[in-house]
């Protein structure tokens, strides 16, 4: 485990170096750019607030993808499942009016279950028909996008001014009012982060400490041996995709109830699901790794926009992130460094 951590840190470091090199080649000062980015994240409470808010959806979409990987499945569909969560939450939040103590849980659970079913559908296709989840979820992503757009334009939902639905009621929101004065009006402080962290802990427990988690991991590592041991492989595939879908959908629901408050018409999908894939891979598919990398990713993205004041294209963040993932992929390249560190550790122990 320790080795994995070192490799990830090295990859992050080297990724930043690659970004610096690109900046230099393009004629910018990397030290200035990185300083701006860093300060842009931590120098004011408002900035920290924004970073956390931006990172929150990635925690759960990353968790969704990581969970699926652990069970042997590639959930490219986190993108679509997120949108399903957003749509259902947005609709339930507006169309019904109930006291907050019922409304909010209803909205969130409804959205999560709907997205879970959406993911489970892909799992069913794989278990029953042998359709690879990569293709089916890619298709489902597009279907979710267009269906969401279709629903936004329904007359009973559509808000005339922006290209979106009416806002959801106060009773369905997760805003934290008492944090507002601390962080300023623009930061949409909400319970999403706290809920996400609790979910991370729960998933960790579920995956590694329970009977069901054992079964899902067994199927993920070796379907044949799992079947031989009496585990129902097909059920596990559907269950895994359901849970993965639910996690991504929850991310969407928390986003709507805490930040956007409505469903927008989109030309292309926003990328929370795809970025979740990056977060999962950076975090080595472990729940706590995902949590930390989501924060890192969100920080880099948000900080990246700040670099615009220096004229630095924010795309350099994509380059840094891409490099980090790439370096994690070729982690074998770090072997000599690891050997050196192990040797050094050995001598200290003596």
């Amino acid at each position, binding site marked *: 485990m320790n080795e994995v951590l070192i490799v990830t840190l090295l990859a992050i470091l080297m990724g930043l170096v690659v970004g610096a090199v690109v900046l230099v080649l393009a004629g910018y000062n990397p030290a200035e750019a990185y300083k701006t980015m860093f300060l842009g994240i931590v120098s004011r409470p408002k900035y920290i607030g924004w970073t956390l808010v931006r990172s929150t959806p990635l925690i759960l979409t990353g968790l969704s993808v990581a969970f699926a990987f652990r069970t042997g499945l590639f959930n490219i569909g986190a993108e679509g499942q997120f949108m399903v969560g957003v749509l259902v939450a947005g609709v339930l939040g507006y169309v019904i009016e109930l006291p907050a103590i019922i409304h909010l849980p209803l909205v969130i659970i409804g959205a999560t279950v709907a997205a879970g079913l959406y993911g489970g559908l892909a799992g069913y296709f794989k278990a029953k028909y042998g359709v690879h989840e990569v293709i089916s979820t890619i298709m489902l992503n597009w279907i979710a996008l267009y269906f969401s757009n279709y629903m936004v334009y329904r007359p009973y939902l559509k808000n005339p001014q922006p290209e979106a639905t009416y806002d959801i009621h106060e009773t369905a929101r997760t805003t934290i009012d008492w944090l507002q004065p601390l962080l300023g009006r623009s930061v949409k402080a909400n319970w999403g982060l706290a809920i996400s962290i609790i979910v991370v802990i729960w998933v960790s427990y579920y995956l590694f400490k329970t009977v069901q988690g054992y079964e899902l991991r067994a199927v993920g590592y070796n379907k044949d041996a799992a079947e031989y*041991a009496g585990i129902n492989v097909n059920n596990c595939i559907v269950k895994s995709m359901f849970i993965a879908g639910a996690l991504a959908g929850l991310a969407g629901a928390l986003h709507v109830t805490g930040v956007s408050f409505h469903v927008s018409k989109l030309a292309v999908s926003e990328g929370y699901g795809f970025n979740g894939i990056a977060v999962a891979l950076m975090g080595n598919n472990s729940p706590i790794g995902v949590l930390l990398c989501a924060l890192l990713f969100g920080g880099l993205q948000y900080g990246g926009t700040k670099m615009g004041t220096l004229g630095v294209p924010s795309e350099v963040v994509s380059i840094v992130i891409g490099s980090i993932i790439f370096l994690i992929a070729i982690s074998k390249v770090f072997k000599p460094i690891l050997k050196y560190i192990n040797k050094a550790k050995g001598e200290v122990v003596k």
Partner: protein
Amino acid sequence: MDYKTIDFNEKVVEMKQITKKFGDFVANDSIDLTVHKGEIHALLGENGAGKTTLMNILYGLYHQTEGDIFLHGKKVDIKNPNVAIEHGVGMVHQHFMLVPIFTVTENIILGSEPVKGAGRIDLAKARQDVVELSERYGLYVEPDKKIQDMSVGMQQRVEILKALYRGAEILILDEPTAVLTPQEIQELIEIMHNLTKEGKSIIIITHKLKEIKASADYCTIIRRGKKIDVVEVAECTEEDLASMMVGREVSFAVDKDEKTPGEIVLELKNLTVEDNRGIDVVQNLNLIVREGEILGLAGIDGNGQSELIEAITGLRPIKSGEVLIKGKNVANESVRDIFKSGISNIPEDRQKHGLILDFTIYENMVLENYQVEPFAKKGRLDFDKIKSFSHELVEKFDVRPTNIDLRAGALSGGNQQKVIIAREVTNDPDILIATQPTRGLDVGAIEFVHKSLVEQRDKGKAVLLVSYELDEVLSVSDYIAVIYEGEIVGHVNAKETNENALGLMMSGGGHGE
């Protein structure tokens, strides 16, 4: 053993002081090997002794860390298989190097394809060449048949043709008889002699003493990477060879008390099972296994054994018939329910079906029981109980290393098998099924497995042993049933039969009882 074919003046292969290291592990330690033209030279050693490594060096798949190789008296640096092939070395691998979805012809010509203009393969010429070659050496094959549709014996012929196609003068055969019937082994020995008559030289890697005695002229014995001795095969007994191979006295007999089989535990009635292509591969099969009995199921791979075991254990649907465990019919029930009815299974492919290599040893120990008490309560795993259970078993069954937190994939084949056996035996099943349980294991591990099976039988359990190794079947079983084309064609007392009789039944001839 026809010394007339050997030309003692011509040394076709000389390997001098060959050393090969993989990191810190020394696979070959200063080994010398000399082969003359027209000779059949056996390379004898236990699993993991280093024989295949040495030959992989000769064929250019590995490169030696130290030492020199001389072919036909000339020093050669064999950098890759192309160089070896250029110098007339050909290799027939233990695990066939054949592409399953390609045809016989495509596999034979791969890498040396005949072309007509701009890289286009001249398929007609290729087919013609293959047919000519197969007729010349008596190795008959169908040029357009896909490898995955062929029997193992036939696949081996393709492997040999591959080497001959490239003009091999020196043929290396790696464990060639592992998958053949006694009759096919005889045929192979004849083929080898024909080849030496044509001036070819053969190196055969094996741990089968009987075959060495039947075919080889000389034998080099390798133990733990070192050369022990070179002997003239005619001057040695099997026991001599065995003790040199293992380094101590070896007895071949399995220690077994007399036991009278009791009540019927497993009964298969008119069992019919289909294979993946919808063909009835098990047909109206009837079989009985009793308490206190080891029943060996002998047969050539591909006669329905795999499908039969899958059907009994619930992994494959049963078309018709009954599977009775102590009178209760479990046909077509779920894997888990059948397991609970008293069957435990040691699978043929331990890495595919028996273990999850990426799970720890303790996670694998409870692979079938993780969900019941005491290992789990209300859906939550109790790791203390799981780990103490695993510690117990690891000690009792001498699994090494003893660290239960290791990945199962880090264990050697023999120790992996010990984990599986520990788990299955501790289930205390009424009937224990073991399929090819000693495949790929060294002599010490084999002894352990056989001992475990006999222990089960002595406790009054029923044991069904499915094996392609006739020696094993004969020495371990009390009774032997022979399966041929999905039916039982013979049922004999192990003490009252021999290899030839069994071999005959296994190929469809003769009848027992």
